[in-house]
C-alpha cells in the first residue's frame, strides 16, 4: 500500500471526527510532492521528478560521470568489456592466456585507487590478476627454476660429452658397449616435478631416458627417437634425496651413431604450471649467497694481505700539550705503528705521534685506528691536522673517518679530553683507501706497496751480475732452450739463477787406455784386455794369450755408465774480464756449471798422485769419455775452453809443478767448494799456484751446503793432499782426503756454458 492509499484510507476511516466520503477529490489537505498537490494526472516532470530510467540499459547515458570517482555506475561499454574478461576465467579461476594485460594507465589507475585495508585480498579486478600472473612468471623464470645441471654429470660411462650453448650438452657414444650419461639432482619428498628435454639434434636411433630415485629405481622414463623434439614427463619424488637422470645411448644393443644434443630442465610442477618455458640451470640463491660469501672472504684476504696501510711507523716519541698539560698521562710508541695511552687527563690536549705524513691524500682515503670508546662520552680522537688551520682537522672517534678531498696533512695526533682515565688504551693508526676500508676495516700494519717493492727488487733481476746473489734451484728442462741460449750468450742471464739446473739421462762410454808394456797378468788374464777397431773395443779371445805387442792391446779402466746427470748453475761470469786477456780470464759471458750424478770413478788407477792432477785417470776419463757426451747434450760450441793451471808434478807429499793448458772440463778445487784450501797444498816456494785458476769460491755455495747440492755423495776434488791422497768432499759434508785408488767416490765436473 503506498502513501496515497494510506492517506485515502485514513480519510475514509473518518480520522479527524467528520462524516466520511469515497471521493478523493472531496478530500481536503491533499498531499504534495515538491510543493505540487497530488491531484489529477500529473507527469513526473510536473511533479519535478527525474526522467524515467531507460529500460534497455540500466542507466541512461547522461547519468554516467566517469570523472567522478564516487560514481559507482558503469557505461554499457564498460559492462561489455568487464563481462568479456569475466568469461575468460575458467572453472579453476585461472585466467585465459588470451587475456590482455593492463595498460600503463590502467595499472596507474589501479595503483592510485588501492584501498590499503584491502591489501592482500584477491582482487576481483581481472586486470590485477594479469599483472600478478606476468610478475609471477618472471619471478619463476629468473629464479632457480631448473634444478639439474646437465653439463655436470655424475658419471659418463663410455660417453663423450660437450657443453653447448644455453645450458645444453652434446652426447656421443665412445664404443658400442653399455653406455649412460648420468646427472644428479635434488628432490624433496612428496613434491611433484616435471622433466622437460628439448632435443636440439635428434638421435639416429632410440635413446632411453630414465628419471630415477637415489637407488636407481625408475620414477618414469621413455625413449627419445629421431622424431622427438620435446620429451616431457611428470613424477612425484618419494624421498628427499638426490635423484638421477640417466640417458642411455645404447638402447637394447643398438648404439647411437651420431651426436644427440639436448637441453634438460627439471622443475617443480608448480613452477612448470606458471611457466613451462625452458630455463638453463641456475644456482639457487642460497648457493649464490654461499659463493658470494666465499668470494668476499677471499677479497678480504687479498685486501688485508696487500699494501693496505700506507702509514709507515715512526720512532718519534709522542709529544705535545696533551702530555705536558696532563702529567699523569703517558703515550707509548710501541714501535710497530701502534700507540698505548695510560693515565688520566685533567685538560684537553693534543699528542703528536707522526710528522711524516704523506701529502698524497687527496680524496678516497680513510683514517682509522681510534679505539671505539667514545659512545658514552668524549674521551679521545685520532686526528690528522693540516698545515693551514683553516682546512680543519680530520678526526676518527672509533668508526673511521673519510679524509677530505682537498687535504694537505701536516701531522697525526691523538687528541684527549679532560677528565678521563686510560688503562692500556691502544691506538692502531691506519690510512687506507675507502674501497679497501669498505671491504675490510680491520687494522693491518704498514706494508710497502708492490710498486715500491718492485722498484727495490728490480736491480736484482735486471743487473746480470746480481744473479750471483739469488738462489732459485729451478728445473730448466733437459736441453738448452733458445731463450736460455740467448740469456747465456748475451750475458743478461735472464731467468737464470744459481742452483737452476738441467737434467738428462746420458750414457758415458767406457774408458780404455793402451797398455804401454805387457801387463803382469797378461798370460792368465788376457781376455780382460781389448783390441780396438775404429771406436769399437773387442775383448781378446783365444785359448791362450796372444803375444803382447805395443799399441795393440787396451785395458778398460772405467766401465760405461748410464746415469741421470744434473748440470747446476754455480756461478755467473766467473772468469769474465770484459777484455781478451792472458791465462784464465776470458771475454765471453758464461755460467760456471757443475755437472754431477756420475757413478764412482777412481782418482787414479794406482794409489799415487804422481804426475799431478793432469796425469790422473779421473781427468783423462772426464776429457775422453764424459766431455763428448756433455758437448752432445749442450752443443760443442756452448761448452767453453779456457786456460786452467793444473798440477803436473809432485815432490814428496805435495804438488810442485803446474802448467797452463786449454781445458773444457776439470774437477772442482777445494777453493771453489769451501772457499779456502784444506788438505791440498804445496810446500814449494811457488805453492801459491796450487789452486790455479780455481781459487774463487763459487757463489752457489753461499746459498746451499755443498753436501746438499751433491745429494750426500762423496765427491772427488782435484787438490793433491799427499803422494797417495787426493782431496774429496765426504757424504756428510766434511772436507776430507782419500787414497787415490779408492773406488767409492764420484767425480763432479766444472764446465763453462756460454
Amino acid at each position, binding site marked *: 500500500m503506498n502513501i496515497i492509499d494510506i492517506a485515502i484510507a485514513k480519510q475514509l476511516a473518518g480520522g479527524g471526527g467528520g462524516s466520511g466520503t469515497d471521493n478523493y477529490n472531496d478530500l481536503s489537505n491533499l498531499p504534495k510532492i515538491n510543493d505540487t498537490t497530488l491531484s489529477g494526472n500529473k507527469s513526473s516532470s510536473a511533479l519535478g521528478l527525474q526522467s524515467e530510467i531507460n529500460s534497455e540499459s540500466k542507466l541512461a547515458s547522461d547519468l554516467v560521470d566517469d570523472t567522478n570517482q564516487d560514481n559507482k555506475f558503469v557505461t554499457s561499454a564498460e559492462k561489455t568489456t568487464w563481462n568479456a574478461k569475466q568469461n575468460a576465467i575458467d572453472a579453476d579461476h585461472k585466467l585465459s592466456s588470451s587475456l590482455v594485460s593492463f595498460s600503463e594507465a590502467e595499472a596507474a589507475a589501479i595503483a592510485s585507487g588501492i584501498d590499503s585495508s584491502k591489501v592482500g585480498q584477491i582482487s576481483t579486478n581481472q586486470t590485477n590478476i594479469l599483472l600478478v600472473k606476468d610478475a609471477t612468471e618472471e619471478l619463476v623464470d629468473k629464479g632457480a627454476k631448473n634444478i639439474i645441471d646437465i653439463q655436470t654429470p655424475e658419471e659418463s660411462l663410455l660417453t663423450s660429452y660437450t657443453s653447448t650453448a644455453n645450458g645444453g650438452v652434446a652426447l656421443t657414444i665412445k664404443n658400442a658397449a653399455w653406455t649412460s650419461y648420468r646427472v644428479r639432482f635434488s628432490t624433496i619428498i612428496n613434491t611433484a616435478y616435471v622433466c622437460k628435454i628439448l632435443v636440439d639434434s635428434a638421435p639416429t636411433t632410440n635413446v632411453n631416458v630414465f628419471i630415477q630415485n637415489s637407488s636407481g629405481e625408475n620414477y618414469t622414463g621413455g625413449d627419445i627417437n629421431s622424431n622427438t623434439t620435446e620429451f616431457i614427463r611428470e613424477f612425484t619424488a618419494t624421498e628427499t634425496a638426490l635423484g638421477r637422470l640417466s640417458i642411455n645411448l645404447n638402447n637394447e644393443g643398438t648404439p647411437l651413431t651420431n651426436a644427440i644434443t639436448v637441453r634438460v630442465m627439471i622443475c617443480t610442477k608448480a613452477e612448470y604450471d606458471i611457466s613451462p618455458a625452458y630455463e638453463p640451470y641456475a644456482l639457487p640463491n642460497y648457493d649464490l649467497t654461499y659463493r658470494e660469501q666465499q668470494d668476499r672472504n677471499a677479497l678480504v684476504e687479498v685486501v688485508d694481505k696487500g699494501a693496505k696501510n700506507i702509514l709507515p711507523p715512526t720512532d718519534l716519541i709522542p709529544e705535545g700539550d696533551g702530555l705536558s698539560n696532563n702529567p699523569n698521562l703517558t703515550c707509548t710508541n710501541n714501535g710497530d705503528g701502534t700507540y698505548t695511552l695510560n693515565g688520566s687527563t685533567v685538560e684537553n690536549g693534543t699528542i703528536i705521534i707522526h710528522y711524516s705524513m704523506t701529502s698524497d691524500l687527496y680524496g678516497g682515503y680513510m683514517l682509522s685506528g681510534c679505539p671505539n670508546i667514545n659512545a658514552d662520552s668524549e674521551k679521545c680522537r685520532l686526528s690528522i691536522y693540516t698545515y693551514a688551520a683553516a682546512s680543519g682537522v680530520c678526526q676518527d672517534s672509533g668508526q673511521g673517518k673519510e679524509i677530505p678531498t682537498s687535504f694537505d696533512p701536516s701531522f697525526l695526533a691523538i687528541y684527549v679530553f679532560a677528565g678521563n682515565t686510560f688503562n692500556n688504551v691502544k691506538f692502531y693508526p691506519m690510512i687506507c683507501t675507502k674501497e679497501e676500508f669498505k671491504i675490510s676495516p680491520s687494522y693491518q700494519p704498514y706494508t710497502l706497496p708492490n710498486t715500491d717493492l718492485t722498484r727495490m727488487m728490480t736491480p736484482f733481476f735486471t743487473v746480470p751480475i746480481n744473479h750471483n746473489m739469488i738462489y732459485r734451484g729451478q728445473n730448466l728442462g733437459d736441453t738448452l732452450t733458445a731463450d736460455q741460449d740467448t740469456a747465456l750468450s748475451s750475458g743478461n742471464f735472464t731467468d737464470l739463477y744459481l742452483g737452476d739446473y738441467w737434467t738428462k739421462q746420458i750414457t758415458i762410454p767406457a774408458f780404455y787406455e793402451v797398455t804401454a808394456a805387457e801387463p803382469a797378468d797378461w798370460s792368465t788374464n788376457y781376455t780382460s784386455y781389448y783390441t780396438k777397431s775404429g771406436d769399437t773395443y773387442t775383448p781378446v779371445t783365444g785359448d791362450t794369450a796372444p803375444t803382447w805387442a805395443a799399441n795393440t792391446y787396451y785395458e778398460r779402466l772405467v766401465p760405461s755408465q748410464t746415469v741421470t746427470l744434473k748440470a747446476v748453475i754455480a756461478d755467473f761470469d766467473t772468469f769474465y774480464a770484459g777484455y781478451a*786477456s792472458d791465462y784464465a780470464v776470458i771475454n765471453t759471458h758464461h755460467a760456471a756449471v757443475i755437472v754431477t750424478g756420475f757413478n764412482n770413478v777412481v782418482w787414479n788407477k794406482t794409489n799415487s798422485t804422481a804426475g799431478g792432477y793432469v796425469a790422473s785417470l779421473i781427468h783423462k776419463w772426464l776429457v775422453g769419455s764424459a766431455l763428448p757426451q756433455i758437448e752432445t747434450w749442450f752443443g760443442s760450441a756452448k761448452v767453453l775452453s779456457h786456460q786452467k793451471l793444473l798440477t803436473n808434478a809432485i815432490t*814428496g807429499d805435495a804438488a810442485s809443478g803446474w*802448467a*797452463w793448458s786449454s781445458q773444457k772440463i776439470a774437477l772442482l778445487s777445494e777453493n771453489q767448494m769451501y772457499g779456502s784450501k784444506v788438505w791440498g797444498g804445496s810446500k814449494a816456494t811457488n805453492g801459491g799456484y796450487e789452486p790455479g785458476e780455481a781459487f774463487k769460491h763459487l757463489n752457489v755455495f753461499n746459498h746451499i751446503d755443498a753436501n746438499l747440492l751433491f745429494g750426500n755423495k762423496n765427491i772427488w776434488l782435484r787438490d793433491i793432499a799427499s803422494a797417495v791422497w787426493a782431496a774429496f768432499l765426504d757424504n756428510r759434508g766434511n772436507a776430507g782426503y782419500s787414497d787415490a785408488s779408492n773406488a767409492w767416490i764420484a767425480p763432479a765436473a766444472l764446465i763453462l756454458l756460454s
Partner: protein
Amino acid sequence: MTQEESIERFNQRAELEHNLTEAKYTLSSTDYKILKIYEARIMEKADPYNAEEIIALREQARADVNKYEQLIAEFNNGTEESE
C-alpha cells in the same frame, strides 16, 4: 807477447821452479840420513846408509839448486840459457 807465448813462458818457468823444488827436497829429505851417519860414527857404529852415495846425491842436489836458481833468475830477466 801473445797469450800463447805468455803461457809457454809461464810453463817453462814453472818447470824450472819444479826442478828447483825437487833439488831442495832431495837435500831436505836426506838431511836425516846424514845425521844418522854422523851419530853412528860418533858412537863408532857402522854407517846405516852408504855415505858416499848420500853425499854424492846431495852434492848433485846442491849443484842443481844453484843451477836452477840461476836459470830462474836469468829467466826472470828475460835471458835464455840452455842447460
